[in-house]
């Protein structure tokens, strides 16, 4: 019984820290309409800084705390607002998702570069002192945490509801210009919100520091719990956020309590499943909250349409395909087995990213769990597949059979993942899919039952004889890329491609044309996941020893970023983006030193930040440049009945510019 009481106290304290972090998230979202994915990364960096100054440099606590909480963190928040977030307030959700995810990845790269991996610990405040309440003891750290959370709840309530600044802060998000006309200074206000938000992240990090092992990604994603809490308040309501945070804290601790009181036979009998579920309670909570959110309403009057790169002609597609195949054949012929292996592994990334072209580039949805689908495909190859109780199934293999099975299985998984996506859009899908990726790490990949086994485990995969050499398998990967690219381009050219783009551009228009976008979105999720599954089988064969590390949920973030930066709307875009990212991860051409990865993370953030208004990415920019040049050479012939033909030409030339501002009209 006493253990239940102490778990309750620990749960409430944990919830209190979640609440602190989550309220920072709500504050920035409410004033700028930007959901800061990087909130956790700020928490992580600030906690490392705390360790650096307090433990490593030996500053006194009374100096460290104000220095970080009142100076460094607010300054960092202001800088974020000024340099990055301000431009995102009116951007579409996918863009702001991309940029904040980019910031997250960059901060991880930065932290890893400054603070090399090592064992780090921080003592609790007044370590050892505690108050005894009969059965249980409450530590000083726990008291302080609770006190701060309560004071914060009260303070924020008063700030937002009882002060002029607070009212103005809440107004910023609705109409900056109008607020400015009323004499407020919107930039200052949102700056203030970001400064405060960043301080709150630092505060949560410092309070949690004593229980941390100072792992970059673990600490960053502590905030997944804060996301869940904030989501319960629909990113708007602070009281609900606090309730959600406490509930989640209790859920996590009661989970641990139940887990510890289970008989060992149950735990070992589940082959890691129970352990995995217990470890992903926070993400499951997030998913549950999102499933409970009310369905998003159809919205009209939003800016629609992104100019996509032109579809290449069949002839051009054929030529480029042939060039790629011949090029790869000659290249692999000139290299040794080691480099061929690295080349093949590099080419896996463009193959995986092709599925994103369909989903993000054409469909306008977002997935942060694409690599988990790849993992499912890899498992089919590595473990074989069987339908329980039927005796139908096959042994581990890389064959047409496993490719088809992987496609079907991941398509089904993808359709299931799309269930929350049916009701939500943009940001929530991003969060939801990331949560799914996190949950799959624990509940699938790290189990013995269906996955690779405990964290770090791998499974040896054997290739069929005719694909035994590194060269032949690398060629198989290249051929798979070409084949998948043809599938993707065929879809784009077909009526399904048009419907997909129409769905992305305006759901309201689709509805008033009598078309259900829901099925389209489920279908595109399923097909895109299926393609990832196919890539997964090849991944397993190319890698030979696929394992949990390969599909670690965090890897989804750089995958998405490289695709966005180079251009997720075209096959060429993902070929280049995937190739560059592939080189970094496999060590082909570029060395696979950790520093390279860290710097690449920072560079890709800069890229995504610069490309805010260019959804077609770097490659898209090049295409546009090329088209402009060819325009000069052959002037297009325009239909003579076009009325003023000059006008048409101007429209063609200013392809990027939007000429459809809505006129001021009636409500």
């Amino acid at each position, binding site marked *: 019984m006493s253990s239940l009481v102490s778990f309750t106290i620990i749960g409430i304290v944990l919830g209190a820290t979640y609440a602190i972090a989550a309220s920072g998230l709500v504050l920035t979202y409410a004033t700028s309409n930007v959901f800061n994915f990087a909130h956790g990364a700020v928490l992580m960096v600030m906690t490392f800084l705390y360790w650096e100054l307090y433990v490593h440099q030996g500053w006194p606590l009374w100096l460290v705390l104000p220095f970080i909480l009142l100076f460094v963190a607010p300054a960092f928040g202001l800088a974020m607002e000024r340099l990055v977030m301000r431009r995102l307030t009116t951007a579409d959700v996918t863009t702001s998702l991309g940029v904040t995810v980019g910031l997250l990845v960059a901060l991880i790269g930065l932290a890893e570069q400054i603070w090399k991996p090592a064992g780090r610990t921080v003592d609790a405040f007044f370590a050892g002192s505690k108050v005894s309440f009969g059965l249980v003891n409450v530590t000083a750290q726990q008291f302080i945490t609770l006190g701060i959370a309560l004071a914060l709840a009260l303070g924020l309530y008063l700030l937002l509801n009882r002060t002029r600044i607070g009212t103005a802060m809440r107004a910023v998000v609705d109409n900056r210009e109008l607020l400015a006309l009323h004499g407020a200074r919107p930039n200052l206000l949102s700056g203030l919100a970001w400064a405060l938000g960043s301080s709150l992240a630092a505060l949560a990090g410092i309070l949690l520091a004593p229980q941390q092992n100072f792992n970059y990604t673990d600490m960053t994603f502590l905030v997944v719990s804060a996301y869940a809490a904030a989501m319960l308040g629909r990113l708007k309501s602070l009281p609900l956020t606090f309730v959600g945070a406490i509930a989640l804290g209790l859920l996590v601790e009661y989970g641990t309590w139940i887990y510890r009181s289970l008989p060992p036979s149950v735990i070992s009998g589940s082959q890691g499943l129970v352990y995995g579920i217990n470890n992903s309670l926070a993400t499951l909570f997030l998913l549950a909250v999102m499933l409970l959110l009310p369905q998003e309403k*159809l919205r*009209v*009057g939003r800016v*629609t*349409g*992104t*100019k*996509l790169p032109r579809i290449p002609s069949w002839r051009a597609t054929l030529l480029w395909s042939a060039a790629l195949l011949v090029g790869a054949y000659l290249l692999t012929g000139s290299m040794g087995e080691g480099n061929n292996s690295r080349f093949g592994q590099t080419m896996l990334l463009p193959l995986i990213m092709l599925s994103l072209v369909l989903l993000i580039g054409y469909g306008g949805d977002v997935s942060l769990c694409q690599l988990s689908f790849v993992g499912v495909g890899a498992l089919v190859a590595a473990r074989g597949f069987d339908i329980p109780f039927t005796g139908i199934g096959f042994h581990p293999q890389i064959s047409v059979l496993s490719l088809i099975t992987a496609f079907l299985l991941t398509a089904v998984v993808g359709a299931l993942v799309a269930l929350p996506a049916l009701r939500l859009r943009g940001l929530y899908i991003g969060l939801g899919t990331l949560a799914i990726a996190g949950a799959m790490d624990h509940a699938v990949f790290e189990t013995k039952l269906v996955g690779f086994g405990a964290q770090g485990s791998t499974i040896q995969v054997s290739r069929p004889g005719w694909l035994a050499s590194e060269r032949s398998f690398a060629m198989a990967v290249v051929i798979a890329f070409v084949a998948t690219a043809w599938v993707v381009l065929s879809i784009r050219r077909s*009526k399904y491609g*048009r*419907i997909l*783009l*129409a769905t*992305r*551009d*305006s759901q*309201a*228009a*689709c*509805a*008033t*044309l*009598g*078309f*259900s976008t829901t099925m389209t979105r489920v279908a595109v999720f399923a097909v895109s996941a299926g393609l990832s599954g196919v890539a997964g089988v090849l991944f397993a064969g190319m890698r030979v020893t696929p394992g949990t590390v390969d599909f670690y949920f965090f890897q989804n973030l750089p995958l998405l970023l490289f695709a966005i930066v180079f251009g997720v709307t075209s096959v060429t875009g993902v070929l280049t983006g995937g190739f560059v990212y592939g080189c970094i991860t496999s060590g082909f051409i570029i060395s696979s030193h950790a520093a390279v990865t860290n710097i690449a993370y920072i560079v890709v953030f800069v890229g995504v930040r610069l490309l805010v208004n260019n959804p077609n990415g770097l490659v898209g920019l090049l295409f546009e440049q090329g088209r402009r040049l060819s325009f000069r050479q052959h002037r297009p012939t*325009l*239909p003579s*009945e*076009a*009325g003023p033909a000059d*006008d*048409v030409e101007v*429209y*063609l030339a*200013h*392809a990027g*510019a*939007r*000429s*459809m*501002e*809505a*006129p*001021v*009209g*009636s*409500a």
Partner: protein
Amino acid sequence: MALLEIADVHVRFGGVIAVNGASFDVEERSVIGLMGPNGAGKTTLFNVITGLQTPTQGAVHFDGKDITRMHPRQRALAGIGRTFQRLEVFGSLTVADNIRVAAEMRGIDNPGRVRDELLDRVGLRAFADVTADSVPTGIARLTELARALACDPRLLLLDEPSSGLSESETDDFAVLVRSLAEDDGRSVLIVEHDVELVLGLCKTVHVLDFGTIIASGTPDVIRKDKRVQDAYLGADESAAEAAGEILEDAV
């Protein structure tokens, strides 16, 4: 029985009353106009009819069936089509594909032919291969019209279709709308700021002000209505007189 029956529709947004007890019918094969100053509730009423907005009170019947709580998609399938005041073209598709995809979404036979016919009929041939987000506003509006027509609606709702059109294009547009009713047998409900166009085109016109229908009748009746003149240009005497003149001129 009228094709569309709107009975005592109210829409409230918090304390704001956008539509306050509007009732009117749209007969088969008729062109009906909906006028009113900015903020009168015209677009809100459109949203109620197409299902993007649920009324706080009142009912909408289409073809004898109560559709008040029906999903926008089902209403479209029942035969209601619309265009948007704030454009909702499929910006990344060409003008031609905007039309074709609508036919494809509805599984209509030979979408290519539907596209070609409509490109000619609506007069979009010259812009067929231009992406819809780079055409001028007027053309984008016509694209939305053609797209709606691809689904062969029995009732077509046009939200400020003529804004962005030149004078000669507006004339062509009026001819087209008339033909939609007379030749195709569709009903058309138009929200329009162009007084001249509405009064010249419509059999019956309803004037909304602050969510209430303040006048209904033939263009002649509307033209002479004092309240309409006031609503359009405020209580200012001279302005009202000028408005009266404009309305008189618009014969």
